[in-house]
């Protein structure tokens, strides 16, 4: 992932080089690496703290399927959070991650909300401030 922001494969071309330390300011969560059972609720909490619209990419073989570490201790990312694009590889080449991000970009351009709420059976989970109306309702 570090070479994705480096010179050869450059996500700054698209304006995406800003990696934020806080989930509140982020649009995309790139989950790279394996997630243990103990860590899964923590990652889920970070994903929940992101503001909508938000997307998630599972990078690497370990977060999508179990990868090399197919054992009792880790859990694939699909089981506890919605993932939009899986990028395979161990480790994924920077071009592969770039392809995954561009594929996500195309998916968003074609269908901006990507049927998120129907796909994940999440109707009624919009956050609504007091006095405001839910979007699209």
């Amino acid at each position, binding site marked *: 992932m570090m070479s994705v922001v480096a010179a050869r494969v450059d996500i700054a071309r698209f304006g995406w080089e800003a990696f934020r330390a806080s989930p509140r300011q982020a649009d995309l969560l790139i989950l790279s690496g394996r997630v243990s*059972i*103990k860590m899964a609720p923590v990652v889920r909490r970070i994903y929940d703290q992101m503001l909508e619209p938000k997307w998630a990419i599972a990078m690497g073989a370990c977060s*999508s*399927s*179990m990868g090399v570490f*197919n*054992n*009792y*201790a880790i*859990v*694939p990312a*699909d*089981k*506890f*959070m*919605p*993932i939009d694009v899986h990028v395979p590889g161990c480790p994924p080449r920077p071009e592969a991650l770039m392809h995954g991000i561009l594929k996500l970009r195309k998916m968003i351009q074609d269908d901006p909300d990507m049927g998120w709420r129907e*796909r*994940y*059976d999440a109707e009624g989970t919009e956050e609504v401030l007091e006095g405001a109306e839910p979007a699209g309702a």
Partner: protein
Amino acid sequence: MEIAPATVRGVLASLRADHGYRALMSVHGVDYYPQEPRLGVHYELLDMERVDRLTVKLRVPLAEPSVESVTPDWPTADHQEREVYDMFGVIFEGHPDLRRILMPEDYEGHPQRRDFPIGGEPVLFTHNDATSPGWTR
């Protein structure tokens, strides 16, 4: 060297005082599954002046898997004995805080025993993607 489980604290203390093995490098757990007594605990000691290593081994049966904890004398054994407890189920009497360290606290089973299954998920392909459990299924 092989010792009886009840004597471990005295033996380690005398090795430190009389023979100069002043560093406890690690505490390991072993499962000798078909042979009884089934569980073993190995203590790696290091004599830094003579650069000499010694392994102190003891065996405990599964029915009564308790060993006296050496944590009061050797503080490094704190986390290491917790790991042996978590992975093998050896209960250390007198340990100040014996709880799981690698697996979640409410996990059942001791993963590194020989009769514990490896676990993991079935490998995801396109043909079994729809039937494998995930966030939405």
